[in-house]
Structure formats: C-alpha cells, structure tokens
C-alpha cells in the first residue's frame, strides 16, 4: 500500500519540515497490521517527494481477526488489503503526520499556513462508484484529478476493469487540509471492507472533517460510508455452503424488490388484502408459509379472531428476525399459545402443517426452482390440505411499468421465475383440479388496463 506526496514549491525540501520527517532518513513504525515506512525518493530543491509505504502482514491480518471466532479465520488470505489503499493508510497518515495534520510546524509555520502546490499519487486506490465518485469527492475541494483504471488481468481482457485506479491528485492548499482530505476520503472511496481501529470513529471524522466536510456537497455519502460498520459475520453456516459464490439473501435483498415496489407500497396492500380475505371467510387458524420476517403473522396476531397463527420459513435468519420483530421473548402467555414460528421447508412433507383452516403463501413460490414446484404443490395441497389456500405471486406483465427494471429481469435476484397472468392461472387451475380445490383469482395493487395488477393472487377453496 503506497502513497506519495510531492511538492515543487521551492525549496521543495522544506516538505521535510512540514511533515516533521527528515528527508535523509527512513522513518519506520510498527502498526497492528504491519510495518509502515516514510522515505523520500526525491529530495531536490525543485522536487521533493515523501513516500508512505505500508508493508501489511497478510497472515497476521487474517489470523488475528479470526482468532476471536473459531480459532481460524473465515476471511480469505487472498485479499487486496496489503496492496490497495484503505483505512490502514489513514491510520498511518494519522500516526506519521500527526503534527502536520494539526497545521503546526515548528520550523516553517508560514509554509504550513500557506496554500502551496502538492501532488499526491496513490498507485492503487479502490474507488467504489468509479472515477465519477472519485471526482465528486475531490473536485469540490479544489483538486485536479488524473486517474488511470487498472484492468483486472491483461491476459484476459474480457474480464474488464478492476475497481482500482492509479490516481494522481494535484492541488494548491495547506498541507494539513490535504492530509485531512486523504485521511477521510481514502476509506470512503475504498468503502468495501472498513477495518476499524478504534471505537471513536465519529470523533475522528468530526475532527478531521472540520472546516471542509460541513460544506462538501457529498457530505452525506462521506459520512455514511466512513461510518459503515463491519460487514456482519452472521450467516456463517450459509456462507460455508455457498460454493464460494455469494448467494442472494432473500431477507436482505427483499429490500431491492421493496425499493422497486415502494411507490405503490405494494407489500402493505398485499397484506391488507390477505387479512381482509381471511376475515371475510371467518378463518380462525392460519399457517403462513414462507413468513419471512413475520409481517403478516404480526398483523394477524393483533386480531383476536385468529385463534392460531403459525409462521413458517426455511430461513433461520428470517425466523430470527421474525422472533425479534414479534418480540417473542416477551409475549404474554396467551399470545404464545396463539403464535408459533417454525422452520420448515415447502419441498418436504410436514405433518405439523396439517389441521389449519387456511394457509397463506405470499410471494413465495417464485423463490422455488420450477422443478421443485411440484414438491411444494403436493406438500401444501395434498399433505397440509387446508380448507383455504391464499397464494400470491408477481404478475410478470406488470414489470414493464417499473422504470428501473430492465426488460426481461425479475424483480428480485432470488426469483427463479415470474409468471404472466395466464401462466399463473393455468398452473392454479390445474393444481386445483388435481387436488380437489376450486380456485378464483384476484388482482392486488393498481390495475393497468392491459397489463393487470402488480400482484396476482389465487384463492383456493377445498371442495
């Protein structure tokens, strides 16, 4: 990890006074993540360059971090942290150039107070959001930017560009300001994995951002990214089973679908409709299959007409969230008798799902592989076989009306299919016929005259 800082302000060697680091010497310091060195490759009257090099210990990085967990780390040894500029660099800047960052200089206070020309080069700077973000962050502060993007691998041009830029920033400013900008903005650009080094990050941000951050047009972005918390290490078991590929997480990625459907607040409309339908049919016991984080269960629990409400999901994480949302550990005992949560799978037969008057399957089937739909169909219509099944799924035709959804894409990463109205109705009729149900259909959300409603529903009544 490398950063160089040069000036051509004569005598350029005054940079040593400004940084409080003698240009003729190698300045080294140990950090928790490795060794840091400051040295001067150019020490001339017309050009002086200070280099800050971090020799990160990749093994220590992983082993130290993991030791708190399982005795080994789940993080990868193949990691860009030793090479790419990150918050480690901020830590090192803060340590090596602490005095300079305060704007004081024992021998050259006038220079420290003056705007002079600096050039900063960061050979590998990860820029989340690309060059545009890089410019948005530095240009308002008066920097001129030259950035060359690194390709992923020149042997494989098809793999495209990496997220790294070899960046040169030029500016005429006080040294302390430049250092503060770098201190804050390098981790903000890196964004990906922010390694905290202390718990006083908010204070640090306020201190280093003083005088420029308040007025920065992208203040919100900077604050949000800078304070981004550790990536959660939950769902470890899932990650270990992931074949090394990140899997879409229906809980988290639900946000994506929600964002898309937000304008029409479709989810609430859907749940209101389900509740009304259940009430209209005077149902007393309900099992919600694929309850997710338990929104419907929560709604039903507030209505004492429902005597037994069970939420099921295959995802343990979803159930954990549901437990927390429903405040399960503090529910009064009469509620505990009514409300149940259990892990089950729609592709297995589960005796625990029998004996309910109604089952709700809200926005669930599209998360199943089409080949496994048969197993689901049998588990619900043949084995659980409640008197009433309410099932909803997206209407694919309506997708054309979502501005930010490219044609042919599904509303959610984890959707395995989305059906048109006729596809859904065909499936529903066949299923009803096979298992002795009668089915009628409903549309939820604003109905478009040719494309229908965003959500389509089937109401199956056992004959």
């Amino acid at each position, binding site marked *: 990890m490398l950063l160089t800082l040069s000036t051509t302000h004569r005598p350029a060697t005054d940079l040593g006074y400004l940084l409080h680091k003698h240009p003729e010497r190698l300045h080294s310091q140990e950090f928790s993540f490795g060794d840091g060195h400051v040295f001067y490759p150019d020490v001339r009257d017309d050009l002086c360059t200070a280099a800050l090099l971090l020799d990160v210990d990749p093994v220590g990085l992983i082993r130290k971090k993991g030791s708190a967990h399982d005795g080994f780390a789940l993080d990868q040894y193949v990691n860009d942290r030793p090479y790419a500029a990150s918050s480690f660099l901020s830590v090192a800047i803060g340590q090596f150039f602490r005095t300079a960052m305060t704007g004081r200089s024992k021998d050259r206070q006038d220079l420290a107070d003056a705007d002079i020309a600096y050039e900063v080069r960061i050979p590998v700077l990860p820029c989340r959001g690309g060059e545009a973000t890089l410019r948005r962050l530095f240009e308002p502060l008066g920097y001129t930017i030259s950035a060359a993007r690194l390709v992923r*691998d020149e042997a494989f041009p098809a793999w495209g560009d990496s997220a*790294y830029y070899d960046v040169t920033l030029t500016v005429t400013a006080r040294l302390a300001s430049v250092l503060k900008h770098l201190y804050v903005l390098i981790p903000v650009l890196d964004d990906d994995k922010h390694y905290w080094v202390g718990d006083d990050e908010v204070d640090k941000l306020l201190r280093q951002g003083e005088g420029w951050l308040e007025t920065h047009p992208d203040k919100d972005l900077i604050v949000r990214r800078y304070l981004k918390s550790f990536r959660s290490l939950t769902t470890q078991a899932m990650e270990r089973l992931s074949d090394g590929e990140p899997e879409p997480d229906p809980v988290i990625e639900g946000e994506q679908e929600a964002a898309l459907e937000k304008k029409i607040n479709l989810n609430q409309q859907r749940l209101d409709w389900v509740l009304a339908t259940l009430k209209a049919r005077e149902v007393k016991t309900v099992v919600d299959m694929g309850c997710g984080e338990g929104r419907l269960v929560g709604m039903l629990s507030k209505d004492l007409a429902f005597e037994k409400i069970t939420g099921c999901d295959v995802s343990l994480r979803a159930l954990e969230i549901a437990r927390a949302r429903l405040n399960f550990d503090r529910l009064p005992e009469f509620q505990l008798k009514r409300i149940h949560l259990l892990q089950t799978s729609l592709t297995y037969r589960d005796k625990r799902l029998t004996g309910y008057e109604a089952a709700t399957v809200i926005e669930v089937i599209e998360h199943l592989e089409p080949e496994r739909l048969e197993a689901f169909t049998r588990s619900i219509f043949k084995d659980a076989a409640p008197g009433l099944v309410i099932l909803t799924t997206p209407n694919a035709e309506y997708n054309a009306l979502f501005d930010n959804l490219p044609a042919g894409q599904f509303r959610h990463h984890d959707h395995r299919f989305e059906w048109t109205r006729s596809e859904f109705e065909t499936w529903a009729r066949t299923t009803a016929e096979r298992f002795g149900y009668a089915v009628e259909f409903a549309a939820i959300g604003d109905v478009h005259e040719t494309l229908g409603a965003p959500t389509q529903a089937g109401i199956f009544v056992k004959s």
Partner: protein
Amino acid sequence: MTQTLITLPDLSLVLLIGASGSGKSSFARKHFLPTEVISSDYCRGLVSDDENNQAATKDAFEVLNFIAGKRLAAGRLTVIDATNVQPESRKSLIDLARRHHVIPVAIVLNLPREVCHARNQSRTDRDFGKGVVWGQSDSLRRSLKGLRKEGFSHVTVLDSVEAIDAVRIERAPLWPDKKTQTGPFDIIGDVHGCFDELHALILKLGYVIEGREPYRVSHPEGRRLILAGDLVDRGPKTPEVLRIVMDMVESGVAYCVNGNHDEKLKKALSGRDVKIAHGLAESLEQLSHETPEFRRQVVDFLDGLISHYVFDGGRLAVSHAGLKEHYIGRGSPRIRSFAMFGETTGETDEFGLPVRYNWARDYRGSTMLVYGHTPVPEPEWLNRTINIDTGCVFGGKLTALRYPEKEIVQVDAAQVYCEPVRPIGHGRDARDGDMIDIEDVTGKRVVETALSRNIVIRDENAMAALEVMSRFAVDPRLLVYLPPTMSPPETSKLDGWLEHPIEAFDYYRQNGVTQVIAQEKHMGSRAVVVLGRDAGAVEQRFGISAGLGTVYTRTGRAFFNDRVLEQGFLARLGDAVTKAGLWEDLATDWLCLDAEILPWSAKAMALLEQQYAPVGAAATHVLPIAAELLARAGQPDLAAKMTARAQMAGAYRDAYRHYCWKVSGLDDYRIAPFHVLAHEGANNLDRDHLWHMAVIDRLCAVGRFVKATERKVIDLNDDAQMAEATAWWEAQTAAGMEGMVVKPLAFTVKGAKGLVQPGVKCRGREYLRIIYGPEYTAPEHLTRLKARNVGGKRALAQREYALGYEALTRFVAKEPLYRVHEAVFGVLALESEPVDPRL
C-alpha cells in the same frame, strides 16, 4: 402343592392385583426383572419423597402411566405393582395396553384380609389401620368376576400363600411371531376363489402338488408359501381354494393371514347377520354344494387365521391390507382391523367406495411388509412395502413375491371373473413415494452406515442444510450422492513447503495401506454427473423426467445454470459412453460419475472477477513502484524485499491463469472423471482405482472433451517409487498442475483406527498461492501458516465419506427415496460444520 404355570405373552402389561400386604412386591421381585416392575409406592416417593403419601397418588399414577407407556412403546413387558383393586384404576391401564397394542394380563393375589393386615402390622412403614385393608379386600372380591369383561385376556387368581409360592411364569411368543422361520418364502396376493390360477402359480413357483384329498404340496428346496388373505369371494372356485390352502397350512407348507373377505365369510357361515355383497353370495352358493363337515372345517380354519405374521428375525411381515411399523408383532382390535382393511380417509369416492389413505408412504419401518387388498395394475414398492394384489379375479394377474429374492412371479387370469366397481389403479398417486417427510431429515439424527459407526447429525447443521437443500439443490431423486470433503496431508516438515507428498505417504503407511494411487488433481469445479442412456432410462431408474440426467456441484446445486447447456453436455458424455461400449459392458443404462469440470473460470468467474484477479492487479501494480521508489531513496534492503514480493505476486497470477480459459459454449468445457461412482446394481466405491481408471480411459479414448487423469501406482514399501512420484509431483505442479490426490488403491479401506481417508490431497507450491495468499511462501509467513491442524477436517471427511457411500449403497439397492436422501442430507449438514476452509 404342584406348580402353577402362568404363560405370559412376551409383550404384555401385567397388573398385579391385591390388597396392601398381599405380597405383590415380593411376587414381582421373584418373577420379574427389577426394571420391569413399576410400583405405585415408588412413584409416590418420586413425586413426594414419601412412598406412603396418599395425597401424591394422582401425580404418582401419572408418572407410573408415563413410564409404562414408554416401556410398552419400546416393546418391553411391564409389570404394575399397585393394589389395582378399583375398576377405574385398572381401566386406565387397560387403555394404556390397548393404545400400545399389547395384551393386558391380570395376576390376582387374593389372600385373606387377616393375613394382609397381620403383614402390614409387622412393618414399621405402614401405619394404616385395618379399615384400609378391609376396604381393599372388598373391592377386590367384587372385581373378581368381571376381570375378563374389563379386557384382561389372561387372568390368574391365586387364593393362598401356597398357591402364590407355587407359581412358575413362562413367557411365550405372540401369535404373529414366526421370527425363527427364515424362509425362503413365496408370498401370494389376493386369490378370491381363482383356483386355477393359484394352482398354476404354485406349480410355476416350483412346488409339487400331489393328491387331492388332501392336497399334498411340497417344494424340492423347502420353500414355503404365505397367502396374504382374501382367499374367497367373487371367483369361481372358492371351496377348492380353501381346500388346498387348508391342506397346505395343515401340513405346514403354507401360512395364511386373515383377509376382510375371509372374515366376513366366516361370520356368514357362523350364522351371523352380514350383508351379502362383494362376491360373498358366490362363495356361499359354491359352499352350499359342499358337505356340512367341510363348511365346519372352513369356519374353524378361518377362525384360526390371525392378522399378520412376522418372519425371519423381523425382516419380513405379511398382512392382508398392510400395517403401521409399530403394529408389527403386536395385537389389538385396532391392529386386526388395520390388517384387514388398511386405512381410509373417511371419505367415499365417486364409486361409493371408501377412499383409501396411502399409509405406505408414511411407513418408515425396516421390516419388509408384503400385503394385498387393493388391486393395483402391477406390484409396487413404496418405502419397503409392496402391494402384490394384482386383481386376478378382475382379469389381472395372480402375483407371488419370492423372498428373499424379491422376484415377482405371475400367472395371468384366465378370464375376467368379476368387473371391478372401481377401475384398478384408480386414485393411486404414483408420486406418493417422492415426497420426503421433514422428519426424515431434521432434528438431531443418527444415521446408520455400513462403513462407519452411526453418524450423528446435529440439529443446527440439519437446519442449515435444510435451507440450502430447499432453496438451491436439485431434486432429491437425482441427488444420490454428495462427495466428502478432502483433507491435505499433515504440514510438511521441509523448509519452504507447506504440503508435500512425504506426509501423505506416511499417513497411509501408518494406517496399514501399502498400495496407493497418486492421481493428478484437476483444477476446475467438482461435479457429480447423473447420466442416463436416454430420457426413458432416467425416468425409469430415478423416477423423474429430467432429460438425460443432471450435473450438480459438491453442495447439490445444479452445475449449469442453463438447462440447454446441461443437456448438451450430458448428450456429449452419453455419446462417449455409447461409443466406448460401456452401457453394454457394465450392463446398465445409467451412470453416476465423480468428476472435475474444467476450466475453473467457467464456474468461478465471480470469484475471479471479485477476488483473484483484482488482488493480482493491485499487487503487481503497486509493488514494483514501491521497489523503484525505495531504490531511488537509497533503501536497497527494503527495495529488494519489495522486488521479491512483486515476483511472488507475479507467480500468483501465473498460478490462477493456468486454470482459466474463455468459455463461450459447450466446446470449451472439459470433463475429467475420476470415479465411476455407481451404475445399475453396483456401488463402485468397493472397486479399486485401477478399475475406475480403466473404465474412464475408455471414455477418454472416444471423447475428445473427456480429459484423462495422470496417475502413478505406488508401493509404499518402495522408496524409489515414492521418490519418482514425488519428482513427478514437483515437476508437474511447477508447470501448473494443481497437485495430486493420494488414495488407497483399493478405494475403501477400513484400518485399525476406522475408515482410512479415501484421499489425501497434496497441493502444489504454486497453486497454494491461490489458497494462502500470493506471498505465502515468504519465510515469515510460511512459518506461521505451518501451524494448522488437519484432525477436524479428517474426522469430517471420514464421516462424510461413510454417508456418501451409504447413500450410493442405498440407492443401488433401490431403497426408499427417504433413506437415500437421509444420507445425502447428512453430508450436506456436516459440510456446514466450521472447518478451516483452506484445508
């Protein structure tokens, strides 16, 4: 006084009945194991710390009932040591016996009340007066007459101390228990008066029939027949069927269980009022031509038929209409009814007949259960049960199942004797066996494996696996195997090496293996291939229409996201199998292969783009710049270090680049199979690797896209061979090979310390940069990385291997789907155990 013999069914609930002081506890101690006896006094003590605390009686009896229930469920004879003098206290115990289908037995100690009182007086812990004993004696006396009516089928009343002392107790097997009879047997389905077909079938099965009155039937190899009931009604020759079966049962060459038609005919012949329907009229008419003597014999015979039999140490059971697994070997009115009629849903269908509930799909017993009752077009297996009623009387076939061979022998009906009310096969659901119950996989599970001890799957692991299995895995019917994880060798003691073949060879030598094979380890993505000769073959064997089969990853996900690509890939592979003549030579029309599919980049593009390539790009860009700046700053030592780091970064890039090439279609894929896991009738994990390699070489010879696996067979007593293999490994890995896997030549080996690792991978020095980081070879890193422990990984590999082996064995043996899935699911569950992912 002579001995009094009491014969107890060996599964019964024995109530000792007698007043306080009648000697029940001494009697129990004398005749039963201490653990067989549950005393109410003891239970009072359990709940109240005082054995005589009458206030605790209610709670004490709840405990007593609970314990007794658990014992009966487990099939253990249980003795209740309580006064049991009140009818209501006996009733709850009789109900308990009924609930567990065991026989309630009463043994009454009816001593004079003075004797009881005197005994109580002599005990310090019993301070109750005369009145209590007097009252108990009165209740007892009033109860004596009605005990049989209350439901006790065995009642013994002992009226004196001498009579009590003279008792000897013997235990006898229950009626259905023929466990000592091991066969071989031929089990015949519903005959319904079709004598000609029965006669023909008996002959076809190889029996010899001599004489007619009586029939003398025998089999030269000593086989015996079992008739699954419904001998009578509807067909043309009910009396003759009865005659031959009665003669065969009499002579011991046949067993027969009771069918619902047999039961009804018995009632009709005994003069009971029954509705004459469903072919009963024909039987009565035919029998009216027989002598009254014969009819009496028929009634006696039918009256002696029991609900079911259990044979061969519990491995085989036969009943007319099936059973639940926990009914087998027990007796109760409910079992008798189930065995005759099966289970119905309570609904009636459009033909006015009761809708049958397919109890067989819930059957999880290990006993093979053969039954009839509901005609089906062909005999069908479901969860170790088989229905062999193929509707002979309706013009179908009369079917016999050979046991233990599981062969079907059939005779066609000569004609349609009766039109079925409901078309044969109506309402059947051919997919009833496809659904796996959640109870088959979740909760803490213990999976029995042939290779290893019982393997425990923790609840948490099962929960994680359930999610993956449900959301991502291919259909369980295709998921017949998952590969085990593989451990590296112990860390190398050599300087500069993390892994080296020496330790792999040492491992096997220490475990008593001398012949190993070292195989090239391909760097692609692990894949299991299920391939059928054609779509029909897959449908036939796997019970799913899935084209030519599927390819899935080590966690059960579809390998190809694109179905067309998958089927195209399978078609090519199928062509190679055909050209190599393997379908014929292996006598199979499906194969299951363990393979690596190349290139790595085909499946790992996301990892390459997000992780591997960027790290290389960043490292190779920044390190030379740092070296140059340091050199300029007059820091040669640090500059040299950065140069060395830059070289390692370059080596890292070269390492992964070996495994990448552009994939734009089918032509760019290669497959390197290394195990022929299974084919029809064969779990090949029992065959040595030379066999596997020979089969795979034939594929390589004909399929351009099938990549051969280089290998060396090594005798671990021969240093030269080991040195040669090591040199080969060093050279090949330096040139880009990932590494090699050392395996016992015999494949599956059980050593002194259990199952030997089926493979140990020795990864190359350069390849390991992809695992341990570009610069792991720097001495300061390597020393630390050498501290690693392969123990956990090995234990896991062992268990997963035993489970995978088990899954294949079960699949090949055509065991029920849930049994195969249980083992496969176990592998996936164990994979969610936390283990260092770099091992």
